[in-house]
C-alpha cells in the first residue's frame, strides 16, 4: 500500500539558517505519527512544509496525489488543503466569528457547499468534539481547550485525509489538555491519518504507531513508541528522553 504521505530528503533554509537538513519519512493511510524533539529542531517547519505553508528548498513531499513542492498557484495549493488540514498551537480561531461560524466558514467560502448542509455538518462536528452547547459562543468566551476542540472540528469540516497537529496542547493548562487528547483519540479511532508534534510523551506512547525523534534538522531515530521510549538507540535520543521523562 502506497503511503499517503511520503517525504524524501527535504531541505529548508531560512536565509542562511538551515532548519531541515534532509528529512525523509513515510506515513501509511490511517497511521498515527508523533514527532518529538527539542525546540528549534525543525518539527513545526516540517509540518508547515507538508501542507505547503512553507516551500522547501530541495527534496520532495507527496501527499495523496499531490506533489507539494511543485504546487505554484493558489488554486493548486487550495486543492492540497482540501486533503490535509492543520491545527495550530495558539490564535487558531477567528475571534470575530462564533464557534459554529468558524467551523462553517471554510466549506462555505472555499468549497462553495450549500449553507444548510454545511450548517448541519458543522453542528454534528461540534457535537463530536463535545461542544454543541457552545456553538454560538465566540472564541474569547471559550477556554483554551474548548478553542482547540473547535479548531479540530473546523479542520474536520474540510473532510481531510491527513491531519497535522502542531503542539496543540502546549499552551493549555493540564486540566484542559485531557479533553483535547480525548478528541484526538476519537479521531484516531475513526481512522484519520494524524501527524502530531507534541511534548505529551505518555500520549505519544499510547496513540502513535511510529515516533520520530528530530534534532538539528534531521531525524535521529524512529520506531514504534515502545522501542523508542524504552530502548533508545542513539545518545541524543537518550539525552533528550532523560530530560523529559
Amino acid at each position: 500500500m502506497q503511503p499517503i504521505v511520503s517525504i524524501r530528503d527535504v531541505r529548508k533554509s531560512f536565509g542562511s539558517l538551515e532548519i531541515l537538513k534532509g528529512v525523509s519519512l513515510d506515513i501509511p493511510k490511517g497511521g498515527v505519527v508523533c514527532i518529538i524533539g527539542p525546540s528549534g529542531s525543525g518539527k513545526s517547519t516540517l509540518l508547515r512544509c507538508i501542507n505547503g505553508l512553507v516551500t522547501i528548498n530541495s527534496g520532495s513531499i507527496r501527499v495523496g496525489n499531490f506533489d507539494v513542492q511543485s504546487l505554484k498557484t493558489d488554486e493548486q495549493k487550495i486543492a492540497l488543503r482540501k486533503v490535509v488540514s492543520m491545527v495550530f498551537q495558539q490564535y487558531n480561531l477567528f475571534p470575530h466569528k462564533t464557534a459554529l461560524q468558524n467551523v462553517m466558514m471554510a466549506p462555505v467560502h472555499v468549497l462553495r457547499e450549500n449553507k444548510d448542509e454545511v450548517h448541519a455538518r458543522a453542528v454534528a462536528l461540534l457535537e463530536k468534539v463535545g461542544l454543541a452547547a457552545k456553538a454560538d459562543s465566540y472564541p474569547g468566551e471559550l477556554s483554551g481547550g474548548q478553542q482547540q476542540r473547535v479548531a479540530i472540528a473546523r479542520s474536520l469540516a474540510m473532510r481531510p485525509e491527513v491531519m497535522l497537529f502542531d503542539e496543540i496542547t502546549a499552551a493549555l493548562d493540564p486540566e484542559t489538555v485531557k479533553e483535547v487528547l480525548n478528541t484526538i483519540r476519537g479521531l484516531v479511532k475513526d481512522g484519520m491519518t494524524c501527524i502530531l508534534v507534541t511534548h505529551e510523551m505518555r500520549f505519544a506512547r499510547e496513540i502513535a504507531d511510529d515516533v520520530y525523534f528530530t534534532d538539528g534538522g534531521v531525524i535521529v531515530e524512529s520506531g514504534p513508541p515502545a522501542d523508542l521510549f524504552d530502548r533508545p538507540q542513539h545518545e541524543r535520543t537518550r539525552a533528550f528522553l532523560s530530560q523529559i521523562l
Partner: protein
Amino acid sequence: MIRLKQKSKEHWWITSRRRTGDGGTDLPVLLPPAQALTRSARAERAWGFYTVRLPWQLGLMLLALFAAGCGIAQAQTTANHPSIFATIWKWTPLLLTGFLFNLFISVLAMSIGTVSGALLGFAQISRSSPVRKAAWFVTQFFRNAPWLVLLFYCMFLLPFQVTVFGVTVPIPGWVKATIGLALPVMANVSEILRGAVQSIPAGQWESAESLAFSRARTMWMIILPQCIKRMLPPWMNMYSILTMATVLTSIVGVAEIMTLTSRALSAENRPGLLLAFYSYVLFWFFIYCYPIARWTLYLEAKYKVDT
C-alpha cells in the same frame, strides 16, 4: 489588572473597571499589540491628544523644504531684487520676536491651564457628588469644544478692561487669547490628573486608610507624589501641542509669528517666498519642540506603568 467593586461612598474613586467582554478564556484571542493599541487609544483619549513624536528626519525635511522654497523664489528673482537669503535675513529679527511671543504665550497659557486644570481635576475626584458631576461636565465640555471657537469666545466675551480697586487695567488681545488657549489645557490637565489618580492601585488607598491617614493626607503624601510621574509625559506632550497651537491666535489678530510672516510676505510680494518663509518658521518650532518631545518619550519609557 486589579478589579475592584464600588465598596462604599468613601471609596467611590476606585470605581470598578468594567471588564468588557471578559469571557474567561485562558488563551488570548489576539496578540498583545492589539491590546496595546487599544490601551494606547484609551490613554490618548485620557491624555487629550496624540503623542508628538518629532523624529530628527522631520527637521531635515523642513530644511529641505526651506531650501526648495529658496530655490523656487531665487529662480523667480529678477536682477534688481535682493537675493533670497538677504531677504530672509532681513526679516529674521522681526520673525524672531514674533516667535518668542508665541513661546511666551504658550508658557503663560500652560501655567494658567495647569493651575486651573489641577483645581478642576481635584474637583473631579472630590467626595461631593454635585461638585464631581459639575467638574466632569466642565471638563468634557471644554475638551470637546474646538480650540478656535474657545479662542473666539475669549476674545469677544472677555472685557477689554477691568477695574480693580479703582484702577482700570486694560486687557490686551493677546491676554484674552492666552486665556482662550488655557481653557482646553485646563480641561485636558484635569483629565490627566483624574486618570493618574484613578490608575493608582486601590491597595495604596487601603493601606493609607488602615494607617489612619485622613483623606487629604493620603492624597498629598501618598497618591499625588506617585501621580506626578504618571502625569509628566502627557503634560509635556500637551505643551508640545499647545506650542504649535499658538499659531491659531493669528486668526484672532494677535501679532504673533504667523501674522508677522504673512505681513512680511505681502510686503515682499514675491511669489515662491511663501514656501521658504513657512518652512523657516516651522523649522524654528521644530527646534523648540524637539527636545521636549524627546524628553517626553524618555520619561514615558522610564515611568512606564504596567497596569
